[in-house]
């Protein structure tokens, strides 16, 4: 089973730092953060730095040619746009491949209808919004767009959702259920998430500073990203890189916080390495979860020290670029990790200036060239849901 390789044959991303892979790479190379005041979305928390996509819903509707009067959620629109990039890259080499979709989202289609939802009970508002409430709505809209009917599922594990979607998709291929699976996620800004994270008092009023001694919280983001995964039936020419390893473990520690000594995260990383048949020394770049919260960065930093000892490879959180894209993060950052792998680049951990006293390691603060054979991408979520992915050059 573990000898059956899984390849990435297409990918796409849509976030505050780019509406295409080229734009995204360009922003990463230029060190240009996508964080800023909220200007498109309507909320009373507009001053919070957020990784907002500066495209209105109306503009997205135009980009997708959505008819007047047809309800469209921002989350779904970003997801559709990102999926087009992935499919455009991937040439179907198998005649009628058995397909699938594994999607991830916090918001589903709820961003369309948040205020409507409660008005419907009073006899007002758009009743079609009812169908858009749950997470499954995202996968369904993707299935309709790409005319798919088999192996459609949605996973929800908070901030590690899209990473877990990628893992489930890889296993669908390895277990013989599908040949080609679209895996990833999307989350648009919503009153629910903006206010939710704000109520937890873990949102930075000044912009996230991952792994910095004076970090003061996360910055939200929005976006969508997808990988197209295929197995050994794919043509060699279509394989971009290999998903060589992955792991899903649970902290079993606390409803929201990770184990402070980083043991939970260390377990996940070690299991991912073992699944890839790799040693710690084989990893040349780590794209960290690095939200900029006090707890995550401490536990993740300690975990890296535990796993990599004195030889922690260059690592960075790119949430200073995109913000924390919630359920989409695992996929947005998988795409960024693949860009790092393909271009031999370690992207900077923007927002960092002062080392944490508890750690002897610091993230990469400038763009670096590196010969990256294997890249590790971490996603650690509420509910103790930890996931790590390893992508490798072929």
């Amino acid at each position, binding site marked *: 089973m573990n000898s059956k390789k899984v390849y990435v044959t297409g990918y796409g991303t849509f976030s505050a730092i780019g509406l295409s892979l080229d734009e995204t790479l360009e922003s990463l190379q230029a060190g240009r953060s996508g964080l800023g005041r909220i200007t498109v979305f309507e909320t009373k928390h507009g001053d919070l730095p957020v990784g907002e996509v500066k495209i209105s819903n109306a503009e997205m509707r135009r980009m997708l040619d959505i008819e007047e009067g047809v309800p469209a959620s921002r989350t779904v629109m970003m997801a559709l746009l990102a999926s087009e990039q992935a499919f455009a890259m991937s040439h179907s080499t198998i005649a009628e491949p058995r397909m699938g979709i594994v999607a991830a989202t916090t918001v589903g289609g709820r961003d369309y209808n948040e205020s409507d939802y409660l008005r419907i009970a009073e006899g007002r508002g758009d009743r079609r919004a009812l169908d858009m*409430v749950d997470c499954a709505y995202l996968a*369904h809209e993707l299935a309709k767009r790409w005319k798919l009917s088999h192996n459609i*599922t949605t996973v929800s594990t908070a901030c590690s959702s899209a990473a877990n979607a990628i893992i489930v998709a890889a296993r669908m291929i390895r*277990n013989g259920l599908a040949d080609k699976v679209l895996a990833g996620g999307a989350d648009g800004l919503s009153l*629910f998430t903006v*206010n939710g994270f704000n109520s937890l008092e873990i949102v930075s009023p000044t912009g996230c500073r991952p792994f910095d001694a004076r970090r003061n919280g996360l910055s939200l983001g929005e976006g969508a990203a997808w990988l197209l995964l295929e197995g050994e039936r794919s043509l060699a020419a279509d394989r971009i890189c290999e998903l060589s390893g992955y792991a*899903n473990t649970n902290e079993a520690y606390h409803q929201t916080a990770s184990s402070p000594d980083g043991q939970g995260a260390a377990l996940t990383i070690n299991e991912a390495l073992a699944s890839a048949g790799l040693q710690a020394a084989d990893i040349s770049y780590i794209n960290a979860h690095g939200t900029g919260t006090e707890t995550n960065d401490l536990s993740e930093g300690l975990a890296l020290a535990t796993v990599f000892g004195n030889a922690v490879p260059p690592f960075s959180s790119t949430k200073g670029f995109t913000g924390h894209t919630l359920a989409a993060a695992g996929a947005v950052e998988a795409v960024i990790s693949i860009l790092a792998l393909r271009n031999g680049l370690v992207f900077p951990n923007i927002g960092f200036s002062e080392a944490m006293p508890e750690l002897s390691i610091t993230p990469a603060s400038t763009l670096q060239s590196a010969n990256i054979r294997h890249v590790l991408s971490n996603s650690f979520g509420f509910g103790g*849901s930890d996931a790590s992915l390893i992508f490798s050059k072929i």
Partner: protein
Amino acid sequence: MHHSSFQKSDMEAYITSVGAITPQNTLVGDYTCDVPPTLPQWHCIEPDYRELIPPLMLRRMPRLLKLSLGAAQMCINGADGCLPEGIIVGTGLACLNETETFMRSLFADSEKGLSPLPFINSPHNIIAGHIARMLKNHSYNCTHCSRNVSFESALIDAMMLINEGAASNVLVGGVDEVANHYHVLLDNAFERPRCGEGEGSVFFMLSKNPSAKAKARIIGAQTFYKPKGGGDIADEFLASIKHRPKDFDGLLLGNNGDKVGNFFYREVGRKFELNTHLAIWKHLCGEYMTATAFALALAVHTVQTGAFPKICLSNEEDNRPMKRILVVNHVKEENYAFMAVEAIER
């Protein structure tokens, strides 16, 4: 059929324990299912949770979590000490009540001074996360929220875990509760299902190897989203598990009283032999996104005893022993699923 999307699946697993909190007396393992409906909304017959859930966890715990952890612990208790190496939950709406509470306060207070607790209780993975904490379990942990195939998606994930050798035992469950506000909205917007809106929490221990306690074998599961070909998807599923209609003794069908929806079940039923027993179950628990978890528990019970509870049968037939059953479900011609269960020959 025009598409070649045939999956060939050798995946199978044993069901070695079941924990079910439902509107019937399944708490005590009674599947007579003679508890009458409490329309328009069914309510579970609940245990004393203090016997199942650690008191510190129980404090201020949302009801959905009590239902989940209660049934999960019942399942663990019945599994003779075998600990799961995977925890996978299917839930359509999770703690929607909590989300709605948060949203109401958000609008009432104009996005100011909100209590975070209902927000923290909103993510769908809260159930699987709590189970992991209750069992101190670090293994594979995932949540599927795929509307009416949430449970089957979780089940397939669990079967994959066993098939790939990553786990010998996996705890997999399907849980949803009636949500106060959501169903008020449904009442205003759409017709309620005639069988009523239901709820339930059913957990299974899936095992690689049959123990003496193994109750049944699950030999396949598959889901579809708005497939073409109507009832032909049943042929596709049977082909994938290398069976023919005559291999099945009974069908457990998800009729919920919706006349249009029944058309699919008749189409499927016609593919099977005349003396195949036809049974339904949603008149015993109501319609909800993970109602098929209850169906699986009922199917497991049926292949063990050899007969459906009389209250399930929609046709009076011979005494053909129920050794292999096909569970068939769809809701509003959108999400479709099949599960095949067979008795263990001893």
